[in-house]
């Protein structure tokens, strides 16, 4: 909302104070929904370098035990890179603002909200997404199997994040108490 700061003074002179506040608040609401914006599909983008600082750079990511080369914008989030450039759509976007946990991935064994992690910040670090949990012969990870056995998923949209968070918890703390488990999973919202 760069327009806002530029125009603010002139705007303030033209309209009443109350009207001005209303517009600022209204603009804020619009601005917050605009934070959803992504860098875009590299294959579709027709304007490399059109905007200052928006040049993609080729980087290496270590995802699920494989090194993947990918063009990444400076402002690109890991969730967008995974979903739109690496085809790893198991990582879901439920809020895109670090609230719901549907986008949870592991970085060096620790859970992160990939919607709020810049891809450039995780170069050469070990990333595990839900797609990377199966065993070498395709068998389900014990946590995945437990989710199946207990009919854990309902709509399933939060499930990948829940599974990743549970795996990360058990890697660090194989026998968590109920309280520890509740705490560890509390960053993952489920509404089913």
């Amino acid at each position, binding site marked *: 909302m760069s327009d806002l700061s530029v125009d603010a003074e002139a705007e303030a002179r033209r309209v009443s104070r109350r009207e001005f506040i209303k517009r600022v608040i209204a603009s804020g609401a619009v601005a917050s929904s605009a934070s959803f914006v992504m860098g*875009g599909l590299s294959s579709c983008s027709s304007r490399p370098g059109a*905007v200052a600082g928006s040049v993609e750079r080729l980087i290496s990511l270590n995802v699920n035990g494989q090194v993947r080369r990918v063009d990444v914008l400076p402002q690109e989030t890991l969730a967008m890179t995974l979903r739109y450039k690496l085809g790893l759509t*198991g990582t879901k976007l*439920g809020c895109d603002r670090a*609230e*719901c946990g549907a986008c949870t991935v592991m970085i060096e064994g620790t859970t992160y909200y990939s919607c709020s992690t810049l891809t450039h910040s995780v170069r050469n670090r070990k990333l595990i997404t839900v797609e990377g949990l199966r065993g070498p012969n395709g068998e389900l990870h014990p946590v995945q199997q437990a989710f199946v056995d207990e009919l854990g998923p309902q709509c399933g949209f939060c499930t990948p994040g829940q599974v990743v968070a549970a795996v990360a918890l058990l890697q660090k703390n194989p026998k968590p108490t109920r309280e520890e488990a509740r705490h560890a999973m509390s960053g993952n919202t489920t509404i089913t």
Partner: protein
Amino acid sequence: MAHKLLGQNFLPHDVVAKVTGEAKYAEDFRAEGMVFARLLSSPYPHARVKSIDISEAMKIPGVVGVLLPEDVKNPDAPDIPLLTMEPGFVGAAIMLVAAEDETIAQDAIEKVRIDYEPLPFHVDPLASLHPDAPDARTDGNVGAAGVKFQTLKWTKEDFANAGKRMPEGKAAQEWAYGDIDATFAKCKLVLDESFVHASNSHHSMEPRTAMAYWQNGKCILHVSSQSQSFITPALAGMIGIPPSDLVVVAEYCGGGFGSKGGAYPLQALPALLSKKINRPVMMRISRAEEYYNGSARLGFQGQVKLGFAEDGKLLAADLYVIQENGACQSFFDFRNAADGLSILYQPEAMRWRGMPVYANSPIRSAQRGPGYNQISHIMEPLLDKAARELKIDRLSMRLKNVGGRQAAFGSRRATVSSSYLKEALEKGAAQFGWQERMARNGQRKGSKITAVAIGQAYHPAGFSGFDGLMRILPTGKVHIHTGVGNLGTFSHSSTSRIAAEVLKLNWDDVIIERGDTRRHLPWNIGQFGSNTNFTMARTNFVAATDALTKLKEIAAKRFGGSPEQYDIDGKRVYRKGSPGTGMSYGEAAQRAIQLGGKYDGHELPKDINPMTQASATAIAGTGLVGVAKDNLPMLGAPAAFAAAFIEIELDLETGKHVILDYLGVADCGKVIHPAGLETQIKSGAVQGFGVAALERIVYDPQNGLPASVGFYQAKPPTYGDSALRFRTSAVDLPDPSSPLGTKGIGEPLLGCAGAALLCALSEATGGHVFNRTPVVPDMILNQLAGRPQAHSVLQVNCQ
């Protein structure tokens, strides 16, 4: 009759994909040349768009096109417009911009110049009924399905004379039965209370992102939907094409709770834009946009007067409900609330009045237990209040008022097909140990107090008149076609097991065709309204019965005698008493293809829906086709009930509660799928805990701006809000209108839990009834400290 599959657990075919990330939701699809669309939505609660200037936006490199209000055909007011020139709430969609990527689309939106004329607005339905108050719309202020869209204001006297009660002017709709005044006159105890039930977002985890493209004249649309077949005709209508030209793909749905039950404009918009620009269009919807366009529960302001006999029987009820519609046509929670009250408590005389009022707030739609759950949340604490005043045990109070097996309800005094609420209460009380548990009620431990409570809820549980479709292939495999959505109840599979049961199949022999209209789906109603386990149990039953009849006829043609002389088992149809004389299902399917006509779907029943007709025609000749419309008798209104028992600990210093123990008991008829039922009871309860004590929509009344556009503001429950001990149970008695006794259950599982928690919070605060949801810690602390609440009694959108 012993069942092979009914009541047994099974592994639904879609579970593994959900834990591995392979399950594809609408935003997980890509198409060649796909562009991204962004919504330009209203920053004003109510305004007229005087002009739209896109010239600067179109100059931005990468912008591909726009979709403007003039490009779409809006439905008649007050239905939700696709794009509007008179936005009625912050976030209402005005236009779309498509670009090579989302950043460009959003940049372009910033360059669109719109000249708005702000219009008067309000976010308080009751206050808006005052003759001097502004209305939310310029073309009427009141309306709902079954209520004329009109302008109906109250008088100044209505407001001036109200005193401490809610003002009660002329109602848009009302009904009554019995002699209400005479019945109140004979009551021992009369309660007369104003109440508020907050609105709350549906909070579907999957935002309603959609992706569309066109191929050979057909529109392929990836959407988030609670069903596939049911939405298709209306969605095709929004796009302006015949249903046969629309392919709906919605194999997975990340939650809907009623908000994705029917076709909605955000599904149609990418399709229309894609057609205009001839590129595939992905329109992602943000969480904030979900709060505007993703819809919410209808909030209530109301007054309820209740008259009780000395023994606790509710004799008379007088209910007035003002519902907040949002800016557009929504639902009829206000009417459902009346049915809910009458069915749960069986008053001898009752009057109901209702006002569905438009407000400049987000789109509303049915949310899990629309109206029925709100009234449980309001009524159950009041029932406890009466019990305390009359010195009656709270369980006895409920057993005193519960209806019989064929309980009557509403103004028409219709009767239910079955009610086992009494059995649910008794079973739950025994399992929970109600009498023993009462000893702990009110016990103090430091700053904490323990409270136990009960909650009940009701919802209709099914429909009739939809179609079933299945086929037996020469391979012996049986394909069951279903339009039941995938909300995660797994009822697409559990209702298919009804067909498998009729044909005595092994579950391994069944293939479920679902999720995509190209899989030839029958006309099924959507997965909403707690109906699936009744409605589609019946459709699958009639389709399988049709297949069974055809199997026997084919066998009789082959081996002689009449069809009645034949029976089935082990995937064979054979002559009774001579098991060797018969053929396998696969052989029968082969013969069905040879016979043609009705046997392989070339000849179809006349009464099936055109959608079923098209689907059956598409699979004709591939095997033995079982297809029929559900014309089975209805022995009353299908009804689902649930009872909940809860123990909480409330910290009197912080106002925060912990749920120590919860038991949910379902009256869902015969249980189809125990594991699925268990997850439904638990997840419905967690949602109820949220509605009762956390979730809200907050609006700035001065500027009409929303303050709850994120999870942290609107507060859906998390792991930390769940119960520490969680148990489930079911009555498991059959409904007589359902072929195998099953009925729906989804919604009352929320209402009974919310009601139980609200009752427990009342109990823990010395019997104070807040008459409001949500009951949040600061309200509890204000009450305990004897301070006034921050809100006035009937204030809304303020928590």
